[in-house]
C-alpha cells in the first residue's frame, strides 16, 4: 500500500473507577426538569401572579423552557466541562469507557460528529414517522386516521421542522462536518471543541421540543410558521419557535467552529488550492449559516414576542408580508445550506471511486461560492403569488441564473466520471442516484422559476415533489452514500456490498415512484396542507402512499444494515477505497488523537494520475510512523 498508516499509540489503559455516578443523560434530564419547574413557578406564581392563572402560561413556559435547556446542557456535562473552567474553577471531566462516551458531554470532534449524526438520524426517523402518518391519512380523502384537521397539520409541521432544522441543516454540516473536516485538513481538534460539545447537546433537546409540541396544543402553520396564522394558533407553536431556536443555535455554533477550523487548523501544506471539496462545501455553507441563521432566529424571536405580549406586528393591522419576506430571506438560502454539502460530497467521493483526478476543480469551487452568493437574491420566488408583478422579474432572473453555478457541480462530477475506472459499489451507486434525483429536482425548479407556471404549481404537491427531490433525492441520498463511504473509517468495519446495493435500488425506486407522482398530483389540483381533498385524487394518493411506506421501510433497512455493519461487519482494511485524502492515513476508527504526528500535505489529494502519496508524515515529528 502506498500511503502511510499510523498505528494508534497504545497508551496505558486508564483506570476505570466504578462509581455511583448518575448517567449524564439522566442527570441532564433531571437538571432540565428542575430548571423548568423553578423558573416556571417563579414566573407564573411570583412575577406574574394573576388570579386563576393556570400553572403553565405562555410566558412561563417560554422562560421555563430556556431554563430547561440550560439545565440539560449543564447536566450532561457542560457544567464540569465548560462552565466551571470558564468561571475559574478546575472542573474534572469524567468520561466513561466505550459506547458511553457518546452519551456524555465530549470535546472530541469525532465523538461530537457521531453524536450529531446520531441525533440527526433520530430526528430523521421521528420526522419520517410523522410523514408515514401523513401518507396514511392521505390514503383516504376524508378524515379517518386523525380526529381533527389540526392534528394532521401539526404532523406536517413536526415533519417539516424536524427534517429541515435537525436533519437537512445538521446531518452533513454538524455530523459529517464535525467528524471529517478536522481529519481532512490534518488537525487533531476542531477550533473550539468545548463550544462544539455544547452545541451538539442542543440538537436532541430541540428535536424533543418540537416533537412534544402537541402537548401544548395543535398548531397549524407547517414548518414556515406563517403569520398571522401562527399568532392564532394554540400554544403548541411556542415549542416550534423554541425548538427551532435550539436547533438553529446549534447550527450557528457549528458553523462558527468549522469555519475557524478550516481557516486556522489546516496542517502544513494544506493550502486553499488543495483544500478538499467537502471542506470547501462546509466552508461555504457555514458562511451561509453565519449570515442567515441569526436572521431567522431574530424573526422567530419577533414572532414569539408578537404572540406573548401580544403585538400586532404581523397581523392584518401590521404587515403579514413582512414576515414572509423575513422568512424566505432565510428560507431559500436554507435550501442551499441543505444541498451544497451534498454537491461537495459528490466531488469528494467520485475521484476516489473512479481513480481519476478531480475534473475542473476550480469550477467546482466557483460553483459552490456562487451558489452561496446568489442564494441571497432569490428568496422572493417563494412569493410570486403575493407580490406585485414588476417585482417578480429580478427574482425570477436570479432564480434562473442560480442553476448555472449549481450546474457546475454536474460539470465537475460528470467530467470526473468520464473515462474513469468506476468502482461500482453501493457508494458510487448512491452518488449516481443522488445526481439523478437532484437533476429532476433542479429541472422542475426551472419550471417553478417561471412565474406563469409557478402561479399554477405553487402551493401544490408539485412544489412538495420538487423540494423532496432536492432534499431527499439530493441530500439524503448523498448522506447515505457518505455513511457507507466513511463507514470503514468510523467503525473499522465494512458493510455488506450486496445488501447495500439492494437497499440503494430499493429506496431509489420507492423514492422516485412516490415523488414523481407528487408532480402529477399537484398539476391535477392537489393543494398542500389538506387532510381532506376531492375524491378524484384519491386513487393516485392511495398508491403514492404505498410507495411512501416502501420508502420508509427502505430507510429503515439501511439503518439496520449500517447498525449491523458497525457492530458485526467484516473488519475493513485501513484504506479500503485507496483514497489519497488525509483522513485515510489515520487508524480506523481513529484514536482519540487522530494524528500523533501532524501530517504534511504535498499535493492535491485528488491526483490519482500518479502513485505518489499526497500526504506524508514528517520523519522529524513526535513519533515515527510505521508503514503497513
Amino acid at each position, binding site marked *: 500500500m502506498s500511503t502511510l498508516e499510523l498505528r494508534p499509540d497504545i497508551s496505558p489503559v486508564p483506570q476505570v473507577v466504578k462509581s455511583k455516578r448518575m448517567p449524564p*443523560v439522566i442527570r441532564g434530564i433531571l437538571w432540565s426538569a428542575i430548571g423548568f419547574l423553578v423558573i416556571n413557578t417563579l414566573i407564573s406564581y411570583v412575577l406574574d401572579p394573576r388570579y386563576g392563572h393556570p400553572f403553565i402560561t405562555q410566558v412561563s413556559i417560554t422562560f421555563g423552557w430556556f431554563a430547561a435547556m440550560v439545565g440539560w446542557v449543564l447536566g450532561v456535562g457542560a457544567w464540569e466541562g465548560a462552565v466551571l473552567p470558564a468561571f475559574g474553577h478546575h472542573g*474534572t471531566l469524567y468520561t466513561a469507557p466505550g459506547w458511553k462516551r457518546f452519551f456524555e458531554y465530549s470535546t472530541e470532534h469525532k465523538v461530537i460528529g457521531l453524536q450529531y449524526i446520531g441525533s440527526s438520524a433520530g430526528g430523521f426517523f421521528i420526522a419520517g414517522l410523522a410523514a408515514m402518518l401523513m401518507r396514511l391519512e392521505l390514503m383516504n380523502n376524508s378524515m379517518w386516521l386523525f380526529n381533527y384537521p389540526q392534528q394532521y397539520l401539526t404532523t406536517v409541521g413536526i415533519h417539516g421542522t424536524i427534517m429541515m432544522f435537525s436533519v437537512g441543516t445538521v446531518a452533513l454540516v454538524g455530523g459529517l462536518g464535525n467528524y471529517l473536516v478536522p481529519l481532512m485538513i490534518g488537525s487533531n481538534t476542531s477550533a473550539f471543541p468545548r463550544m462544539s460539545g455544547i452545541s451538539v447537546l442542543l440538537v436532541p433537546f430541540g428535536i424533543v421540543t418540537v416533537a412534544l409540541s402537541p402537548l401544548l396544543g395543535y398548531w397549524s402553520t407547517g414548518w414556515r410558521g406563517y403569520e398571522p396564522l401562527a399568532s392564532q394558533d394554540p400554544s403548541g407553536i411556542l415549542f416550534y419557535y423554541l425548538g427551532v431556536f435550539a436547533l438553529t443555535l446549534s447550527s450557528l455554533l457549528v458553523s462558527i467552529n468549522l469555519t475557524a477550523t478550516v481557516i486556522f487548523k489546516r496542517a502544513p501544506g494544506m493550502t486553499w488550492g488543495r483544500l478538499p471539496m467537502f471542506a470547501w462545501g462546509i466552508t461555504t455553507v457555514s458562511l451561509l449559516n453565519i449570515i442567515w441563521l441569526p436572521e431567522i432566529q431574530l424573526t422567530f424571536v419577533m414572532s414569539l414576542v408578537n404572540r406573548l405580549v401580544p403585538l400586532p406586528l404581523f397581523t392584518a393591522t401590521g404587515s403579514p408580508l413582512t414576515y414572509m419576506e423575513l422568512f424566505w430571506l432565510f428560507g431559500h438560502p436554507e435550501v442551499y445550506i441543505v444541498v451544497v454539502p451534498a454537491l461537495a460530497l459528490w466531488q469528494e467521493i467520485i475521484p476516489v471511486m473512479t481513480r481519476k483526478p478531480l475534473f475542473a476543480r476550480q469550477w467546482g469551487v466557483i460553483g459552490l461560492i456562487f451558489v452561496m452568493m446568489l442564494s441571497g437574491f432569490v428568496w422572493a420566488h417563494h412569493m410570486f403569488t403575493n407580490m406585485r408583478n414588476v417585482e417578480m422579474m429580478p427574482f425570477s432572473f436570479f432564480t434562473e441564473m442560480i442553476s448555472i453555478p449549481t450546474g457546475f457541480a454536474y460539470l465537475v462530477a460528470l467530467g470526473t466520471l468520464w473515462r474513469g475506472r468506476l468502482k461500482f459499489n453501493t457508494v458510487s451507486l448512491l452518488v449516481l442516484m443522488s445526481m439523478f434525483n437532484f437533476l429532476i429536482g433542479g429541472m422542475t425548479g426551472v419550471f417553478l422559476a417561471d412565474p406563469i407556471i409557478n402561479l399554477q404549481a405553487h402551493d401544490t404537491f408539485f412544489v412538495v415533489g420538487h423540494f423532496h427531490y432536492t432534499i431527499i433525492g439530493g441530500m439524503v441520498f448523498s448522506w447515505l452514500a457518505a455513511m457507507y463511504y466513511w463507514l470503514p473509517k468510523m467503525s473499522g468495519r465494512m458493510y455488506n456490498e450486496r445488501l447495500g446495493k439492494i437497499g440503494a435500488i430499493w429506496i431509489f425506486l420507492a423514492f422516485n415512484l412516490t415523488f414523481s407522482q407528487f408532480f402529477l398530483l399537484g398539476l391535477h389540483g392537489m393543494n398542500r396542507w389538506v387532510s381532506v381533498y376531492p375524491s378524484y385524487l384519491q386513487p393516485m394518493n392511495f398508491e403514492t402512499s404505498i410507495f411512501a411506506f416502501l420508502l420508509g421501510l427502505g430507510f429503515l433497512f439501511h439503518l439496520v444494515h449500517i447498525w449491523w455493519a458497525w457492530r458485526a461487519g467484516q473488519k475493513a482494511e485501513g484504506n479500503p477505497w485507496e483514497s489519497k485524502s488525509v483522513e485515510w492515513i489515520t487508524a480506523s476508527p481513529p484514536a482519540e488523537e487522530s494524528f500523533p504526528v501532524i501530517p504534511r500535505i504535498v499535493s492535491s489529494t485528488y491526483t490519482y494520475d500518479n502513485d505518489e502519496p499526497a500526504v506524508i508524515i514528517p520523519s522529524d515529528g513526535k513519533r515515527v510512523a510505521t508503514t503497513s
Partner: protein
Amino acid sequence: MANEEPQEKKKVEVDWSRRQFLIGTGALTVVGLGAMFLNEPVAAAVRSVFGQQPESGPITVLQGDYFYIPNYMTWRVGDQISMTIHNTSTTHFHEMQIGRGFNTMPTALQTIRTQFAEDFWKGVPVTITAAQGIDNFVTNEAKISSDVHPTPWLLTQPGNGGFSPTMKPGGQITLSFTVPNKPGIWHYACFVQGYMHWLAGMRGTINILPA
C-alpha cells in the same frame, strides 16, 4: 465566549450504570409517547374507574381555539347551575350549543354538520346574570329572563338556529338554570365559522344523571 484554551483538566474515566440509563430514558420515552397519543383514552379510563361527581352551583366552561375546558361534565336533574362561559381566545369568537343529533348540509367534498338537531334548551327557563363581550345570543325556544340590560345582541325569535351564546374574544356570559328533566348523554359544541370549529375538535359531552 467562543474561544478555548488548551485543556488542562484531567480526564478521568468514571463508569456509570447502563441499567439506570436505559430504564431512565425508556421510562421517559414511554411517558412522552403516552402523553402525546394516549391522553384521551387515559382520561376516559380514569373517569370510568373513579366516576365523576355531578357538578352544581357555579361552574365555569372555558373556550379556546378549538376546545372546551372541561370537555366532559356530569350534571344531575334538578340541580341549580350557574354556568359561566368564558371565551379565552384572543382571536376567535366562540359559541356553545348543547343538543343531540345533527342537522347536515351536503357539499361535494363532504357532508357538513351545521348544528344539533335536538336543542337541549327547548322550554328551559334560563336567567342571564352577567354578560360582557357578546357577539350575539340566539335563544331559540328557551325561556329567557335577564338580569343584565337587554341588548341588541339578544335574538329571541326562534328561527335563527339553536340556543347559543356567541362570545367575542375575551367575552363571557353567566347562565343560571335548573337542570331540566332530560337525563342521558348530551353534547356541546361550537359550530361557528362555516361549521369548522366542531370539525376542529371544539366539542364536549354532558352526562345528565336522573334525579
